[in-house]
């Protein structure tokens, strides 16, 4: 790790101001991803602003009938909340499908959204990576790409977003609330929060420099059957090859979002409309324009079958 200075802040305004005051500063919450990357000198902040003392650790009802989740609510606490388990089962299921019990006790809601790819070339500082060193090239294209993106990728990057939670939030159409050093709040739909790689894979979210996530808001309960199915190389504690977040109503209509296939949680509204017709039609819409590599082309049929399994589960 490179040396860094450290401060604790107690209000969102202080946090945003502390970041603005020091170029090279970063927010620190759970730290489970940031510290890992700092040890490898992939992240090299000169100053850490510890936001753990901010009063952003509550889950509260909204006037609209949804839930506002504080940015610092730990993944385990979010998965355990009785309202989340009852009305947003897809979110609770996605959370417990991710990481380990220890990490879920530490990781926060906002940090989960901000986590970076687990592409092995991003982690290997001896190899080119456009995300780590813009313009250096992509080692995954033409390299070992079994885990990588099949859709929405670019010639600069085929990394995936590793979060399970974000896939459920995408299916739920959650919104991300932020504040900046000027105290201005902003609401970003989860659909727009993460970016596709394009020519700038190092720019991963819509957040501006110094902008702090304060909460994530869920819409009023959608009803239906909530399903999160994750396919991975081990039965537990592994990132997804493919995951499916589905909310299916009794009449067969609903929503579906995929994890493990793109640079962001992958949802196509035209695919939702095909849900009553079956997994094949849904998958063909989700993967329109897909560009898999030879090594990860298996993800297309795997995703279709996982969607089929989810729809079967919803009917039974």
């Amino acid at each position, binding site marked *: 790790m490179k*040396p860094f200075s450290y401060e604790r802040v107690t209000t969102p305004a202080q946090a945003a101001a502390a970041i603005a005051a020091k170029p090279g500063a970063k927010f620190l919450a759970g730290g*489970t991803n940031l510290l890992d990357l700092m040890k490898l000198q992939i992240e090299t902040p000169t100053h850490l602003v*510890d936001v753990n003392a901010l009063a952003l650790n509550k889950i509260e009802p909204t006037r609209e009938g949804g839930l506002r989740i504080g940015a610092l609510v730990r993944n*385990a606490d979010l998965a355990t909340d009785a309202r989340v388990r009852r009305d947003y089962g897809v979110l609770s299921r996605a959370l417990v499908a991710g990481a380990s*019990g*220890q990490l879920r006790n*530490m990781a926060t809601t906002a940090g989960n959204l901000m986590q970076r790819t687990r592409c092995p070339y991003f982690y290997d500082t001896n190899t080119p990576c456009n995300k780590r060193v813009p313009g250096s090239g992509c080692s995954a294209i033409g390299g070992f790409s079994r885990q990588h993106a099949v859709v929405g990728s670019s010639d600069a990057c085929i990394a995936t977003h590793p979060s399970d939670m974000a896939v459920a939030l995408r299916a739920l159409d959650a919104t991300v609330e932020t504040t900046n050093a000027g105290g201005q709040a902003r609401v970003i739909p989860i659909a727009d929060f993460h970016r596709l790689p394009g020519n700038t894979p190092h720019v991963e979210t819509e957040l501006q420099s110094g902008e702090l996530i304060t909460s994530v808001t869920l819409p009023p309960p959608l009803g239906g059957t909530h399903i999160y199915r994750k396919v991975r190389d081990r039965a537990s504690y592994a990132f997804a090859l493919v995951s499916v977040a589905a909310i299916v109503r009794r009449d067969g209509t609903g929503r579906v979002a995929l994890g493990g296939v793109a640079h962001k949680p992958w949802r196509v509204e035209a695919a939702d409309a095909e849900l009553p017709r079956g997994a094949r039609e849904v998958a063909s819409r989700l993967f329109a324009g897909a560009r898999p590599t030879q090594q990860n082309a298996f993800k297309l049929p795997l995703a279709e079958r996982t969607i089929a399994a989810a729809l079967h589960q919803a009917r039974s």
Partner: protein
Amino acid sequence: MDMNDDLTITRRELLIAGAASAAGGIPQAAGAQPAQPEAPVTARVSLQVNGTRHALEVDTRTTLLDALREHLHLTGTKKGCDQGQCGACTVLVDGRRTVSCLTLAVMHQGAKVTTIEGLGTPTSLHPMQAAFIKHDGYQCGYCTPGQICSAVGVLDEIKRGVPSHASADIAARPLLSAEELRERMSGNICRCGAYANILDAITEVAGGKA
């Protein structure tokens, strides 16, 4: 011990020298990323470890794991992968199981930390320690302190109704099944493969409490 101390000093000196040469060797272009602080930065933190208050002044980079092992000489907590994957460094922070390698000591001002040394003593074992011995829940023993701290955390989580991937009904109270315990312990790796006996040990303690 002497040998370890020598190694520790050498590693620290190497880090300091490395940081200094990196900072000195790269010319700073105008408007480029600011230079890293050239020397390590220290900060004060007070931790309550196993019931005893400790005021420490540490390099900000010090993980909770290194603070426990290198500063407080509580070497029961083990460093395995140092990247949050193996669970050997699991301790309880304010009662919740945590991988101490992926958190900084300075983040835990005033926190209550329980390590394997604080769970029980050789003459007064914690029930989980006793059950691991009874069921032979280890071979080399390196992962054992983390396994035991994690297992204590798991039983508390089940008691508090924290769901898991193995819970058939996510809205229901979790069960104390073998499947649940296996899933919940998946963040603790045992390369000797003592899993079956670890499961027996945890099951016995869980049953005794239920």
